[in-house]
């Protein structure tokens, strides 16, 4: 399997009144036709990682170090023209709040056609035909009529479908989904997830799916990377991580889901709050909240341990786990 996305030692700093170390030494791979879940709480750097992949972060206030390669191309070295072609055609993105991510003054058809015209130089009529085709692909009922609808005339689920149609209009290789189901209610959520999964197979896309909901990740992902304080603390196959999480944070995250929790029993929570990201971590970021922290944890960075062929964790505990396996 070839890797479409290769991120190595990515570091992102936001400078300004206060420096924020949003992403710290992050390495990530995305294979062809694979759905990778980026899991973590708010502020853990999931969305920042996605935006770095498309170079959407504000240029002046962001320092990016490391390497980001998509289809072998160095994204960080692209000029504006290359970026314009790259965005939307190679990689495209769907957003959390479809009501805000669609332009309120243009019809859905118009917005999809605009992108198609820009990237593929099609005529107005061909672009509109593509827009209609896309609306049918995402199963919007009476697509022809919806082509002429404004975003405010559609329901939340319909808008998210339209957003997906817009993102897929130019048949991208990679789709980045930034919590696309968070703003939807539970019944619509599952429909959208199923649709995404189906479209991913149909188009043969790779997807990076950002979410904080482990239930959603289980539904759609092949592989999962758990993020904490701008680092990936554990990554591996969905099976591997859900069945046998190694990192205490990943364990805590899995335990704190309401799926399968006993009625009446208190939900498991992780005590404490995430650390401030004012400084680059010099030791394990999770150590202050960790129930099994060892004296060494607060002193040096934990090693990134390969536990199984496709399962790695950044924790001292992983060392004993890996020796246990081998």
């Amino acid at each position, binding site marked *: 399997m070839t890797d479409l996305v290769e991120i190595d030692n990515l570091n992102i700093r936001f400078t300004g009144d206060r420096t924020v170390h949003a992403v710290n030494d992050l390495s990530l791979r995305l294979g062809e036709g694979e759905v990778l879940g980026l899991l973590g709480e708010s502020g853990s750097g999931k969305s920042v990682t996605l935006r770095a992949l498309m170079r959407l972060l504000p240029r002046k206030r962001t320092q990016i170090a490391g390497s980001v390669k998509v289809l072998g191309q160095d994204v960080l070295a692209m000029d504006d023209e290359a970026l314009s072609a790259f*965005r939307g055609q190679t990689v495209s993105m769907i*957003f959390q709040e479809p009501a*805000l*991510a669609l332009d309120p003054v243009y019809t859905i058809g118009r917005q999809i056609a605009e992108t198609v015209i820009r990237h593929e130089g099609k005529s107005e009529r061909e672009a509109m035909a593509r827009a209609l085709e896309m609306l049918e692909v995402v199963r919007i009922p*009476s697509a022809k009529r919806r082509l002429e*609808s404004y975003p405010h005339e559609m329901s939340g689920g319909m808008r998210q479908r339209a957003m997906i149609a817009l993102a897929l209009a130019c048949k991208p290789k990679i789709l980045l989904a930034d919590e696309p189901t968070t703003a939807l209610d539970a019944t619509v959520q599952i429909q959208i997830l199923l649709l995404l999964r189906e479209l991913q197979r149909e188009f043969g896309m790779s997807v990076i799916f950002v979410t904080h909901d482990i239930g959603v990740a289980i539904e759609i992902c092949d592989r999962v990377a758990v993020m904490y304080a701008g680092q990936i603390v554990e990554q591996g196959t969905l099976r591997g991580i859900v069945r046998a999480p190694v990192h205490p944070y990943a364990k805590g995250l899995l335990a704190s889901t309401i799926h399968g929790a006993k009625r009446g029993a208190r939900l498991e929570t992780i005590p404490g709050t995430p650390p401030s990201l004012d400084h680059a971590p010099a030791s394990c970021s999770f150590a202050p909240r960790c129930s099994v922290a060892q004296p060494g944890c607060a002193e040096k960075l934990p090693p990134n341990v390969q536990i199984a062929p496709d399962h790695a964790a950044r924790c001292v505990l992983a060392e004993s786990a890996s020796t246990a396996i081998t």
Partner: protein
Amino acid sequence: MSDTALQAAPTTKARGYWATVARRITRDKVSMVCALILILIFASALLAPWLHLADPYQGSMIRRLRHIGTPNYPLGTDELGRDMLARLIYGGRLSLIIGILPVIFAFVVGTSLGLIAGYVGGKLNTAIMRTVDVFYAFPSVLLAIAISGALGAGIVNSIVSLTIVFVPQITRVAESVTTGVRNMDFVEAARASGAGPFTIMRVHMLGNVLGPIFVYATGLISVSMILAAGLSFLGLGTKPPEPEWGLMLNTLRTAIYVNPWVAALPGAMIFAVSICFNLLSDGMRSAMDIRN
């Protein structure tokens, strides 16, 4: 297939944005009355030479300051015995031009400046907005008088000075609306789909920003007319014997005790046009707010 039949059946085509706005505004009685009055005034000003009116320049010493309703002079005569009806209608030509042209010019310049300042941000924003603030610091009447005075009396000069007065106001509105729109998700979504800064400005910014600025500018037309009338009143705008409402108000003020109704007529015209533009812009504001 029954499925396609179902899809083809509902042919109630969804309306475009402007069509919806138009439909909503035609339902608003106040706006419609105002629009009607404005259309009447515009049409009569435009068609003045074909309306068989008396010569607006031809005075007569013996029939000065006739009352409203005098035979042959339905709206009386002014201090030089010229027919008021003709002068009011011909006066509308100049007054409307000086009222509307500066707003159109300022709309174009101000929107561009505000859009660039708001979208680019940073130092350029500071440069544009602080320069604009310098002009904004003066009361608009004072600024108009100062610029007109410096440039000299005349119609072109008063249009220039009024444009300069309105550019800062429109720029500020355009900038604040643009900054609001710039941080919306759909702008990022547009960037994520590969749109360059010019496409974003042209398509997404302008589309979202134009409505509110347009409404604001319509409201400015009345201000422009009043300021233009003020300039003429002070002798900085139109020169006699040219009929213009502000100037007429000025020359007729000496007759206010002799024939107050006739003296007040040009003022009434200014008032009518201003209030109609104001109410119309209010109506448009609510008609454009489709999202609610």
